[in-house]
């Protein structure tokens, strides 16, 4: 039951290192303070597990500037067999729609696939749109919030939690699954990291390689664009609750009620 599994990943900026370019209103990316989107690690982890159970082939894909190469090396260390970077200056400032188009063109170029896995959202733009949009772009079914999955007789059986219910869904291949965060991810070993670098390469595909329409990428291909990006200043204040522990607990409880933090 060999499958071709594709995982879409993204390089994000470390939470405390976010800087905005005042001219382009976009986030400043540097290799030093960027890493793989933590939500994508869950998708990658599940994909590696699936790959090992079913002797499948796993391809990691990302769209981004050349420094995004680093997350692909990480994906290779974790267990991807092939890594593709969709990179072209014309892809810059793409919104989620244009990004999904580029990813879709990349996946079409890869060829036959059974499964596309995405993380739930990214920590730096947080839209949670790319997974479902990419499924639409590829014209395949998708399920979000996937907690468990297995393939039985050519069909994916999916489990997810929805409004306090456990939903069991069936979806035919090829499909796109958006993976829910889990509690633990495995670390690649030092040998895995070394092997990734000695046994693999990163493939670079640009607009022409993808045979993509330049009007559908970057700003021209975007349905939305960022007008302004302003850092939020958070005001923190500290209140000391006096009295015996029991009294302090009561005061804390009242304060939480007051702020509608208890329903």
């Amino acid at each position: 039951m060999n499958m071709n599994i594709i995982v879409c990943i993204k390089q994000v900026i470390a939470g405390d290192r976010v800087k905005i370019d005042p001219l382009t209103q976009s986030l400043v990316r540097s290799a030093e303070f960027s890493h793989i989107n933590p939500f994508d690690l869950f998708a990658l982890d599940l994909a590696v597990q699936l790959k090992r159970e079913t002797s499948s082939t796993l391809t990691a894909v990302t769209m981004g500037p050349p420094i995004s190469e680093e997350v692909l090396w990480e994906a290779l260390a974790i267990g991807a067999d092939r890594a593709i970077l969709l990179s072209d200056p014309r892809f810059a400032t793409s919104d989620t729609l244009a990004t999904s188009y580029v990813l879709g063109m990349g996946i079409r170029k890869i060829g036959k696939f059974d499964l596309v896995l995405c993380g739930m959202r990214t920590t730096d733009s947080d839209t949670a749109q790319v997974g479902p949009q990419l499924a639409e772009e590829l014209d395949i079914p998708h399920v979000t919030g996937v907690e468990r999955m297995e393939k039985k007789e050519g069909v994916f059986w999916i489990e997810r939690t929805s409004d306090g219910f456990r939903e069991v869904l069936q979806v035919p291949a090829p499909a796109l699954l958006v993976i829910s965060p889990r509690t633990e991810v495995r670390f690649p070993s030092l040998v895995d990291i070394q092997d990734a670098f000695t046994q693999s390469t990163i493939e670079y595909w640009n607009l022409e390689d993808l045979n993509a329409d330049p009007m559908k990428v970057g700003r021209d291909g975007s349905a939305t664009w960022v007008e302004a990006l302003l850092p939020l200043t958070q005001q923190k204040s500290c209140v000391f609750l006096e009295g015996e522990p029991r009294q302090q607990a009561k005061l804390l409880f009242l304060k939480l009620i007051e702020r509608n933090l208890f329903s």
Partner: protein
Amino acid sequence: MDFTLSIQQKQIRRMARQFAKAELALIAKEIDEEARFPWEVVEKMGPLNFFGMQAPRKYGGAEMDSISYCLVIEEISGVCAAMGLTIAVHNSVVVYPLSQFGNEEQKATYLPSLAAGEKIGAFCLTEPNAGSDAMAIESTAVREGDSYIVNANKIFVTNGGVADTLILFVSVNPDDVKKGFSAILVERGTPGFEVGLLENSCGVRANPVSSIVLTDCRVPKANLLGREGDGFKIAMAGLDTGRIGIAAQAMGISQAALDASLKYAKERIQFRVPLARHQAIQMMLADMGTMVEASRLLTLQAAHIRDQGGNSPGLQQWPSSLQPAPLQKCHRWVYKSMEVMDIPKTTRLSDIFEMPG
């Protein structure tokens, strides 16, 4: 001269950093207070190759370059100095000399379990009357048939309380210690082998530094590492490597002290502004930052020289002896902050390890 780390080295550093954060950060203080060796973490570190960082692939090691090795030790030590010490010693003064001087049979017997972290290694040189003056050792190994009868009293043995495979330095010639100075592999559990009292090592209590006593302990002759009389060469080769690891440990502790100081300086308000807004504090932070960075450059340079086949004992000595400076500054400020008390405790720690003294 290119000082940038390769993507591969950065990935290795990132993995070690994330591992330390996920598995050690929450327990570092507790295991130090309880003087508990965290076997549950060691079990997770084994499959990730932390115990065979530079061992040959053939025996389950990662065969990593020395810069990557330093980066891993720095990251682990910054979160938990005791575990940084455990892997530094295990890798550099046990796995390395065994890979270098062991015969094929010894390597096949001992390296796979050491590299997998299933067995912990220790290096036993220091004695009550011998330290920097290694030739003053009183431990003996007397030939009897196919065995040596070993009598030894070793102290300050890092990993001693948990070690399974130990490299022990003895003299096989009681009349001429120098000629008879030899390294012998001893396994825990051999009759006559005893773990003595644990040291109460400040800040690295989770590492069971202990004495090791051998009384009429029969060790097969096949356990001799190298030849009789090779002991000094083996000890020095191990220590040359070991000191780079200890410098990397110092680097990790110093960086953690700097990070803690920086955090505290931004949080603590005095004269209506955070400490970091006061120029005197800024100068201290700048000094600390400079020292940490200088230490890092020296340590990594020493690692680089080692990979080129050279040796540079002076380089790695400096970071270790310098480490107390940022720590003492850190100590001054965060004295009352419980959150970071773990870090200053390790003051002067790396200053004494594997150093002449």
